[in-house]
């Protein structure tokens, strides 16, 4: 015997009539698209109408290929406030258990639902009946499964089934919290879902208390206004699973984080009027192990908020403008992730462009269960110079959890043409339409190169200071040489004056020698007196410039007096000369003692004559 396995359901949404489309929803689905001949399948037809009291009439399709094993019907009314007014949604679910009558390709024809005179039909469902005892192929079950979840951008991550580890243990009501991944990166989106699993009829919920989500930035993904359940078989027990909330969470820091339990009050019973009781339920806590962003290949200065799958585009409008007229630079980051934490690159200073403060605008939306966002940064730029300008490429490093790696997204450089404004363009405008050539910026490089000399400065050279001394030294040498020359070239008369005294003394010493010879009996007194007279007259001639030989005694006396000699000295000189003359020409007229006395007087007179010479 082959039984259907799993809980895959084939669902086909019904096309409904246009006018009442918003009020009526009709669908039919089978829980398998293959069934063994000895097995059964469940056909579920659901009709939802926006009415408190009116009920839709269901007409089962022609089930010529099936036997109806059993039939059941349930009904629930949901009451919600929509736009400030109460809204009722009555849902009638009819479940028919069918057993195929034959093998082969079978069809469940369209069911019809009549409501307020209008008829709505479901689409036919194709069922393949297998021989008895043959299990339906898993593929067939998969094909019959609800539409697969839209591609997860983080395909490498394992998205968890919210009920994979749920074990209600036959409890009637279970509040189930789940996340789609348990080891997210910091900044990566995880989806927190809160389901109510029920084996009893749930007429409504109240006082839903979501946990505090400290350590997360969260965004609402889905908050159903009415309870719509889907059948789940958990541990072999059929349950109705009602989605109560779905939120996107972005962990803000790494480490173990626990999401506290949620609580809800569940009203059970049939419809509003037959609600029997209310029960409070709490979910289990959820523990996450938030991974830090990998350090390997982490770009320098990476901003931890740039996590997600982002693109970056830049534009300038207009791209050709007159000088002084503003253009709008727009930088747009778009993608999946938490746009609020995104750190966009900033436009640096561009020579010739005056930039005003940028404005930023964030938009968030949910697309296929993923939070997407767009940040638009607009900045007013006013060109101040004519010519072509380039707005450089901007780059932003992001961590892409899908790739588990870093990558750089960048814009293309944008060329801006700025032309001269008409002469009157500046009138009334805020910015003068002039070609402002402000100083600053990097100067252009040099295209020609000259070789420089880095000689040591002259004052550090060894020759510098000696060379400075050359002039003074040369002059000193010249002066010294002149002096030497003067010294070497002496006047004979001067020489005689200087040597007059020593010459006179030498003669007196000669006279003394002659006197000594006389004592021995050999000398002549005449020679002695001649020598004494020559000593005096020679001295007077050399020193005093008086040629005594050509003068009378009176003339000699006057000459000596004229040169300042004392009269006593003059008389003594004249006396000695007279005595010498007498002794020379009168033989025997002088004895030795008188000669000695005369020699002594001559010597003393030389000293006295020298004094007057020095004094003059």
């Amino acid at each position, binding site marked *: 015997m082959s039984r259907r396995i799993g809980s895959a359901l084939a669902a086909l949404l019904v096309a409904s009539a246009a006018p009442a489309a918003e009020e009526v929803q009709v669908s039919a689905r089978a829980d398998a698209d293959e069934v063994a001949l000895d097995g059964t399948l469940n056909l579920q037809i659901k009709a939802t109408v926006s009415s408190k009291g009116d009920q839709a009439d269901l007409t089962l399709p022609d089930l010529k290929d099936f036997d109806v094993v059993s039939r059941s019907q349930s009904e629930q009314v949901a009451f919600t406030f929509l736009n400030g007014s109460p809204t009722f949604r009555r849902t009638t679910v009819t479940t028919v258990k069918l057993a195929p009558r034959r093998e082969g390709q079978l069809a469940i024809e369209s069911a019809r639902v009549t409501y307020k005179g209008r008829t709505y039909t479901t689409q036919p469902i194709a069922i393949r009946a297998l021989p008895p005892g043959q299990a339906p192929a898993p593929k067939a079950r998969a094909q019959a499964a609800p539409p697969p979840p839209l591609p997860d951008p983080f395909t490498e991550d394992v998205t968890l089934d919210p009920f994979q580890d749920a074990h209600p243990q036959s409890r009637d009501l279970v509040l189930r919290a789940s996340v789609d991944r348990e080891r997210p990166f910091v900044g990566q989106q995880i989806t927190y879902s809160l389901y109510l699993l029920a084996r009893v009829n749930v007429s409504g919920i109240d006082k839903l208390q979501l946990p505090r989500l400290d350590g997360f930035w969260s965004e609402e993904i889905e908050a159903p206004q009415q309870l719509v359940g889907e059948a789940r078989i958990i541990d072999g027990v059929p349950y109705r699973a009602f989605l109560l909330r779905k939120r996107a969470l972005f962990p803000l820091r790494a480490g173990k984080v626990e999401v506290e339990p949620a609580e809800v009050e569940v009203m059970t019973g049939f419809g509003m009027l037959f609600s029997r009781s209310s029960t409070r339920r709490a979910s289990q806590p959820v523990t996450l192990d938030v991974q830090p962003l990998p350090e390997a290949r982490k770009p320098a200065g990476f901003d931890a908020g740039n996590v997600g799958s982002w693109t970056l585009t830049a534009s300038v409008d207009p791209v050709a403008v007159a000088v002084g007229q503003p253009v709008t630079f727009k930088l747009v980051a778009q993608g999946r992730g938490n746009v609020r934490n995104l750190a966009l690159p900033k436009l640096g200073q561009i020579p010739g462009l005056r930039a005003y403060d940028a404005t930023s605008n964030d938009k968030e939306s949910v697309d296929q269960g993923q939070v997407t966002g767009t940040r638009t940064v607009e900045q007013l730029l006013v060109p101040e110079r004519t010519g072509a300008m380039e707005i450089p490429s901007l780059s932003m490093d992001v961590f892409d959890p899908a790739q588990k790696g870093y990558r750089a997204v960048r814009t293309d450089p944008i060329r801006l043409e700025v032309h001269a404004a008409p002469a009157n363009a500046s009138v009334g405008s805020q910015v003068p339409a002039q070609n402002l050539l402000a100083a*600053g910026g990097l*100067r252009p490089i040099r295209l020609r190169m000259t*070789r*420089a000399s880095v*000689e040591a400065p002259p*004052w550090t050279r060894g020759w510098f200071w000696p060379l400075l001394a050359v002039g003074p030294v040369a002059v000193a040498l010249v002066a010294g040489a002149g002096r030497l020359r003067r010294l070497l070239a002496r006047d004979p008369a001067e020489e005689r004056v200087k040597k007059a005294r020593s010459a006179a003394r030498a003669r007196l010493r000669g006279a003394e020698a002659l006197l000594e010879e006389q004592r021995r009996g050999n000398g002549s007194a005449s020679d002695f007196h001649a020598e004494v007279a020559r000593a005096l007259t020679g001295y007077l001639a050399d020193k005093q410039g008086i040629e005594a030989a050509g003068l009378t005694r009176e003339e000699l006396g006057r000459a000596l007096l004229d040169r300042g000699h004392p009269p006593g000295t003059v008389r003594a000189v004249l006396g000695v000369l007279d005595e010498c003359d007498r002794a020379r020409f009168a033989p025997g007229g002088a004895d030795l003692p008188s000669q000695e006395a005369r020699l002594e007087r001559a010597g003393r007179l030389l000293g006295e004559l020298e004094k007057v010479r020095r004094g003059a």
Partner: protein
Amino acid sequence: MTRLALAALCAASAARAGVSVPPEARGNPLFDQANAAYLSGDTSRAVAGYEALLEEGLVSPELETNLGAAYLRQGKRGLAGLHLERALFLDPSDDDARANLLEVRRGNVDKLEGETEDAGTEVLSRVLAPLPGRPAAVALVALWTLGWGLLAANSLRPRASVGTSAAACFILAGAAALVTAGSAAAHRLTLRRAVVVAQAAPAREGPSDRAASHFEVHEGTALRIEDEDHGFRRVKLANGLTGWVPAAAVEPVVPAGWSNQHRL
């Protein structure tokens, strides 16, 4: 071989970008190719080309200016400041190097407060740097020697015109001596001038890694080297802050090779 490879790389880079140096500006092929690489936006190759020329021993203010600009474009403010300072040392009248140096300093991390102690030195150095020290020194020697010669001639054979000429020579020699002294002072200051090339370096109380550090200096900051010991340099900032930094963190504006170099 390295030079050829670099030239080829620079040329390829420039060719891709469609940038070329005007024919009339051609001179040194590697310099031209490095310029072309710079103009095409490939600053890495431009830097490699310029550095290769420096390694060859080429000394040129334009080479230093261009290398400084290339480093500045790469965001290496320390090396940019160093080479622009060298360009100004080689040619104090280089306005482009001076303007680029201002750009470097505008973005410096270090902002000195209380610039009183050595601010005068900095200003003095800037004022004195353009003085024509070398010609003034030569003129000093010539005028001084001539003055003494005329003085000697006047003492041998006094004449009024010779004496007046000697006096004029001594007055002019005095003026030349003042210019030479100013230039020598500026030269002395420049020889001790340096730039921080490391991104950041702790300034310590002594020449040791274990000595306490009370402040950090960052790339691009100009300072003076006061002493050197055990792989550390004692540096003084313009506001008088003094400390020992690792020798590799600062580079003297006048490299050791230049002070010994004569004609290139």
